[in-house]
């Protein structure tokens, strides 16, 4: 076994699935044996060379990895134009939106579906917010000939119609969830309930770095391909590491995938961008770290939006993928240790970034990624011209054009 690095921030979680005080396995007894089975199977799989080689093969030939690291020259110039003399960092995009299915989600889905196969599970369920994880899961299930049921809040079904249709084309059953605000949180509740009732044959493919241990670790490990590639590509292109990394955070899988490989690189600053909705001082936002406090939901202890009595609050964001009142437990720990800075971007700021990116770079970003870009637009002008900032462009915005048109008052 490798000796742990002294002072490394990459050692978590511990045997109980904790990152500091966060994480854990807060699930009903009916699920507990299955959670332990997933953990055991994953521990075996990640040390199984054939398993990992098959995952890598899929990433290369099916997903199209490595995804490019793109120097966003026009965006850089645009931000420099309004910056002070000598200011305005070089902006790079890690182009996860070019992956098959249009987002980073497929990286961890393929790993998990291979695991489900290995465990002998014969059907797969998933929750989805924006529909990206649902589409990725439906895609992998089509490829591996597994029946797939995707739980999706009825509100999200309405605002993400293109992805709903995609999932159906791929042969998945989309199950609209009407409880609560009918968004991602409720979809996850319903997926967990369904899993409890179908433990024998069903694998639950969680889309983010949340849920009970081992999910936060497992999804992170698979998503680390983003940060690992970024590191290599940056060294090849610029001969050095970037000065800052920026990524939107809902549950936080794309951010964790980008950040984790850099956690021990002291010179690299990191910014997780939470959705501020209509503003963090209103009641309509999804900024769990900025405005929440620690609690337990969906199997783990983490920062949550909750009232004074520990009841979970409904989140709000223009982006369905960020519309979640919690965040992955490792993010909570990275926040409390101060390693990652958690900041916010509003619906309006994301809409502006969405349009600017489309016009300047010819890339229509997902509304999730547009939150990250909105923060880059604030951060880059405060950095020097020879500084480098990398944005995780985690998904493409095709799915969002109807939402954006609606907000801009355009009839399609």
């Amino acid at each position, binding site marked *: 076994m490798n000796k742990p690095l002294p002072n490394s921030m990459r050692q978590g979680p511990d045997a*109980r699935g904790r990152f500091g005080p966060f994480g*854990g*396995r*807060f*699930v*009903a*007894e*009916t*699920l*507990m*044996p*299955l959670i332990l089975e997933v953990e055991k199977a994953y521990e075996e799989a990640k040390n199984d060379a054939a398993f990992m080689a098959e995952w890598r093969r899929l990433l290369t030939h099916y997903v199209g990895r490595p995804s490019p690291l793109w120097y966003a020259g026009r965006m850089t110039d645009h931000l420099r134009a309004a910056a002070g003399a000598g200011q305005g960092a070089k902006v790079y995009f890690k182009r996860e939106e070019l992956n098959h299915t249009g987002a980073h989600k497929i990286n961890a889905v393929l790993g998990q579906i291979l695991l489900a196969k290995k465990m002998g599970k014969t059907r797969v369920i998933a929750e989805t917010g924006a529909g990206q994880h649902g589409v990725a899961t439906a895609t992998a299930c089509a490829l591996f000939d597994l029946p797939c049921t995707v739980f999706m809040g009825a509100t999200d079904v309405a605002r993400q119609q293109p992805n709903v249709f995609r999932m159906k084309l791929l042969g998945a059953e989309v199950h609209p969830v009407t*409880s*609560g605000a009918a968004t991602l*949180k409720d979809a996850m*509740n319903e997926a*967990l*309930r369904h899993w*409890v*009732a*179908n*433990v*024998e044959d069903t694998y639950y493919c969680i889309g983010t770095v949340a849920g009970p241990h081992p999910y936060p670790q497992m999804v992170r490990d698979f998503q680390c391909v983003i940060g690992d590639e970024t590191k290599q590509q940056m060294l090849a292109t610029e001969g050095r590491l970037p000065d800052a990394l920026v990524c939107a955070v809902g549950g936080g899988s794309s951010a964790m995938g980008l950040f984790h490989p850099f956690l021990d690189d002291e010179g690299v600053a990191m910014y997780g961008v939470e959705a501020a909705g209509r503003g963090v001082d209103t009641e309509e936002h999804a900024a769990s770290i900025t405005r929440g406090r*620690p*609690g*337990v*939901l*969906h*199997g783990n202890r983490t920062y*949550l939006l*909750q009232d*004074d*009595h*520990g*009841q*979970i609050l409904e989140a709000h964001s223009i982006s369905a993928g960020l519309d979640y009142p919690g965040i992955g437990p490792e993010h909570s720990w990275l926040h409390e240790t101060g390693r990652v800075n958690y900041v916010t971007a509003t619906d309006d700021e994301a809409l502006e970034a969405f349009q600017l990116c489309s016009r300047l770079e010819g890339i229509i970003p997902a509304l999730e990624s547009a939150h990250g870009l909105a923060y880059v637009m604030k951060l880059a002008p405060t950095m020097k011209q020879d500084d480098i900032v990398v944005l995780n462009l985690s998904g493409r915005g095709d799915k969002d054009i109807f939402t954006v048109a609606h907000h801009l008052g355009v009839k399609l």
Partner: protein
Amino acid sequence: MSRIAARFAALKAEGRGALIPFLEAYDPDPATSMAILRGFPRAGADLIEIGVPFTDPMADGPTIQRAGQRGLKAGATLSATLAMVRDFRREDDATPVILMGYFNPILSYGVERFCTDAAASGVDGLIVVDVPPEEADEIEPHARANGLDLIRLVAPTTDEARLPRVLAATSGFVYYVAITGITGTRSATSEALAAAIPRIRRHTDLPIAIGFGVRSPEQAAEAARIADGAVVASALIDTLAENLDAQGRAKPDAVRKVLDQVRALAEAIRATPKAA
């Protein structure tokens, strides 16, 4: 001896199992749920389970989800639930009361303060659905220090290797979840229960109650005969929900109908002596 131990000992001497009806705090309003709680013992409840409403009840089916939403809308909180138990205790010092709920409201209240206040209010035991034995140290020391039993769920999925560990972390009684599923959905067969209960008995001397899918007097009698008690929840809440008006207010005879149902369950259990 705790109220829970005393009650199960008395029932054992009587040669029958326990009826454990459930109500959700503040469903659909404080007065109605208090009236149901007060009426439970005379209708034949041997122990009482009170659900503490939570926005995201992971193990509950639609019936209890909706009951929780009605309770929350009516202003239910953890402290309001404790106040109900205090009121109840003014006239009943013998019937054990168990709170069932999820961890976050307890965390938010403060685990230590909650255990102190719950014991002082007359609560006897806790079922915290989303705190498995692996996370027990979150709550166990404070529960124990205050004499609160931590009643654990054992599920059909709890295997032989795991069973001793779950039972070691249990006090008061064992709650056997009869089905792999959520509350108020399907029911286990007598054969499945007859196989499951002896499996647990081999590892524990604690009384065992069966819940999830126990709806009719016949099912309750069967569960209480095979194990030591039957928890009936969704079937009672369904009755309450059927007796709400269009605005969600309890109709005049809603409480009576729920208590009549408890009476029918109790009669069936009392007419069924336990297998020796």
